[in-house]
């Protein structure tokens, strides 16, 4: 529970809108650096599209490599928004307040990026049209709607639409505050966006109801998205190691593990960039650290089951795949790195209160989780494909080209830049949520001690 500190409405407005009305130099420096990364990404993608997929490391039988790994990774990161915003709102966790908007925005930009990856992966992005049109008009051959590869973009697009709606509904009161502080064309734009918000009690009631309803409605979508992404693998019975029943929840919990970690990293960056020490406090990181320790352990349990059932019954081809993953280089080294960075380093660290409350250690541990989670997806996808299967006739080792590496690194810059540019136009910490939190703060006196408390509606 956070310690009670009263900032006042004026200070909250001034602090949280400061970047919109005038940014500091370091903000532009970071944006500039990220823009260079995005430029490199665009150049590499453009080069690949012009030259062809031959410039990548993809070849028979490994046709899913860095791009698809990155796609799964970014879909995973997008799960932070709903976890922190919808679930914590429904469970009335007070400490969620400064983290919700940033989590939702990370969700939106990572979903955009995720959707981009299969498009780039096709090598000829215009061919994406065949996702919803017959690829042979004369014979009317339509895409197979029974394929998980068709369900996947549908689920992601639904999630993206709902996430944008979720962000927008929560933004309305804050947009009205910006409107009231703006002049000229800016005022006009924010007037339109704030949909005539006057802050009447009826408007507040509707806004709150919409928030709770959207939270409840978005939950099934949240669960279904990564479950459907997991179907891309678990429904493919010919690839050893993929057809396993635990994949759906394993992917979802892994997504929450990496997504919440990413939000912590972003929150710390925002705290540094915008000097939000009064809003993003060690208390918040402490609570997020505890949540991450629980989620991480649940994820590890699922991972262990997935692995143990891989060798269940000692079927020779499954044993061979696991042997490749564990003992042949470079996969074995990656496997160890994945375990250490994904679980054995960060989670034991989070057991210490001092680590959970430290900006430095939380940055290191949460970045470590995402290195591990990226490797996890890579180790699921590539070794399985690399081995000769029933319908493939060659063996091959996959190694990514510089083009693929540039594109993948560029996506990290793209998401971060998107979040920071959003912060130039909209507050990344919800003003009204923070103000509401201040009103609901209280204290209970127990003997000589003051215990932080919060008001709850019955």
């Amino acid at each position, binding site marked *: *529970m956070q310690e009670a500190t009263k900032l006042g409405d004026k200070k909250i407005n001034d602090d949280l809108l400061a970047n919109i009305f005038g940014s500091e130099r370091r903000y532009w420096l970071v944006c500039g650096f990220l823009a260079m990364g995005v430029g490199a990404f665009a150049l590499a993608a453009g080069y690949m599209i012009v030259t062809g997929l031959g410039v990548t490391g993809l070849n028979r039988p490994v046709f899913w490599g860095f791009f698809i790994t990155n796609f799964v990774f970014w879909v995973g990161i997008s799960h932070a928004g709903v976890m922190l915003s919808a679930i914590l709102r429904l469970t009335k966790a007070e400490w969620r307040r400064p983290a919700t908007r940033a989590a939702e925005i990370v969700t939106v930009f990572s979903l955009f990026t995720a959707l981009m990856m299969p498009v780039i992966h096709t090598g000829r992005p215009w061919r994406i049209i065949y996702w919803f049109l017959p690829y042979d008009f004369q014979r009317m051959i339509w895409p197979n709607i029974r394929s998980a590869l068709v369900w996947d973009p549908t689920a992601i697009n639904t999630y993206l639409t709902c996430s944008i709606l979720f962000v927008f509904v929560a933004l309305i009161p804050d947009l009205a505050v910006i409107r009231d502080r703006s002049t000229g064309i800016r005022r006009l734009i924010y007037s339109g966006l704030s949909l005539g918000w006057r802050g009447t009690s009826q408007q507040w009631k509707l806004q709150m109801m919409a928030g709770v309803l959207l939270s409840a409605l978005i939950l099934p979508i949240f*669960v279904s998205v990564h479950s459907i992404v997991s179907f891309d693998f678990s*429904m493919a019975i010919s690839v050893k190691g993929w057809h396993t029943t635990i994949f759906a929840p394993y992917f979802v919990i892994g997504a929450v593990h990496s997504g919440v970690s990413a939000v912590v990293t972003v929150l710390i960056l925002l705290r540094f960039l915008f000097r939000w020490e009064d809003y993003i406090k060690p208390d918040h990181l402490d609570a997020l650290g505890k949540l991450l320790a629980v989620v991480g352990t649940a994820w590890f349990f699922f991972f262990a089951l997935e692995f143990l059932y891989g060798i269940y019954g000692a079927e020779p081809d499954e044993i061979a795949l696991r042997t490749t993953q564990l003992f042949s280089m470079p996969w074995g080294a990656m496997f160890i790195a994945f375990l250490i960075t994904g679980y054995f380093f960060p989670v034991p660290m989070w057991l210490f209160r001092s680590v959970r409350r430290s900006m430095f250690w939380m940055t290191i541990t949460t970045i470590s989780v995402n290195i591990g989670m990226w490797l996890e997806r890579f180790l699921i996808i590539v070794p399985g494909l690399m081995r000769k299967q029933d319908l493939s006739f060659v063996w091959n080792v996959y190694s990514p080209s510089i083009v693929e590496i540039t594109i993948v690194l560029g996506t990290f810059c793209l998401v971060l830049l998107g979040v920071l540019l959003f912060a130039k136009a909209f507050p990344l910490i919800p003003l009204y949520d923070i103000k509401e939190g201040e009103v609901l703060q209280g204290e209970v006196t127990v003997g000589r001690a003051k215990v*932080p*408390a919060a*008001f709850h509606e019955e």
Partner: protein
Amino acid sequence: MKTTISPSLHDGVLQGTFGDVSRDVVQRTSTIGGLYKKVLGASFALTGVGVVGFLLIAFTGSDDRSQWGYLAAMVGYLLTTALAAPMVSIACRSVRANWGKPLARVAELYAITGLGVLLAYVPLVVALPALYPNSDAPRESLRHTIWVFWHPHAPHIYDSLALLTLVITGIALLLISSIPDMADFGAKATGKRASIAARLSKSWRGTQKQWKARRAAIGLLSGLYFMGFLTLHYQYSSDFAMSLVPGWKDSIFPVWHALSGLQCACATVMVTMYALRRWGGYTAYFGVNQFWSLGKIMLALSLLWFYFWFMGFFTFWYGRIPAEMAVLEFLFTEQYRILFLVAFILNFLAPLLILVWNKVRRSTGGPALAALLILIGALVDRIRIYVGSWSIEDSFGHSLKEMPPAQLPTIPDAMVIVGGIGLVLMIYMIVAKVIPIISMWETKEQLLYVSHRSLLKKKYMLIGKPD
């Protein structure tokens, strides 16, 4: 010993002093009423019926494994309900849920019933086949198992150890968490039971150091219990069900089994809470807030029950691999279709349709009814899984060679089922008269942290949460 002062509920907040809570709970624990005697007598009788049923099965002379299917189902059911119940108190404590404080002991007290589960488990471990058909058999003839490179009797050894560890941890957790209350009961009541309680809490003085050490022990034991709970569900569901059905390789099944355990843990506590409120007079401790909050968790777990089941089912169904389709046919769509449908309705559809309404959730009867249906559904489901698995004669190979017909219960089977429930009830009721069923120290904490305060001209609940 009669007193007119007792704690009461006002707008969902418990009102009273520490003394009121102590007096009330001690008085209720030391009094043995007529209804209590009747229920205890009935549970004794049911246990007796179960013992006779067990003896009838054991002495029929047949070494057919399928005759133990119902006992395996009963043990599976008790792991899912009675031994899962302490998870409710562990969860409430870990998130510092104030509403969960009065019901922590109700949940934890079920740990002691693990002694009964241990007794029922012994014949099963004897009947469970080894992993190899014989000691000279090649590795290829290994039964599908989680113990791939282990001793042929690994399930027998490690499953027993897992169960024993869970039971010991649970009892230790119960005793350590109830020391202050037993000391209170021992000091304020008279009689044999009070002296047992006093002896069990002899060293307790309530010093700051003792409270600190006790809290640390509760935290540690809770973590151990949680891990033990997951491990046991993983091992028991794999070794006593999945491994006996050739071709059944389902990595989500142990998780679903454990999740069903969490759902039933809430249901068990809910039904007990309802009974204590309705017939035990504990109305002040179990208000609508407790039913509402636990009901919400039960609703979420019912949805997850469906999600986990569906993901397993769908992966098999979509894959169309003959060995997996045979398992689906056997356990879901042919032999045990009716049991599956009943379980599906009672564990998912009915709780969803009842608990989705906030008005119903905010009552005492609605959530209790949903909980009762969940408990019945879980029993049916365990019968489907374990009786089906134990009815397969040849557990070796990669797919089901022939599907035995659904095995209907014989009279001894039914006796074993009711006996198991009776045994748990009997142990619970006896221990509840030595260890107070309401966690007094936690209820007193609730008195300190929860109150009504005015905010913007309205009254709200102010809930304190210490670090």
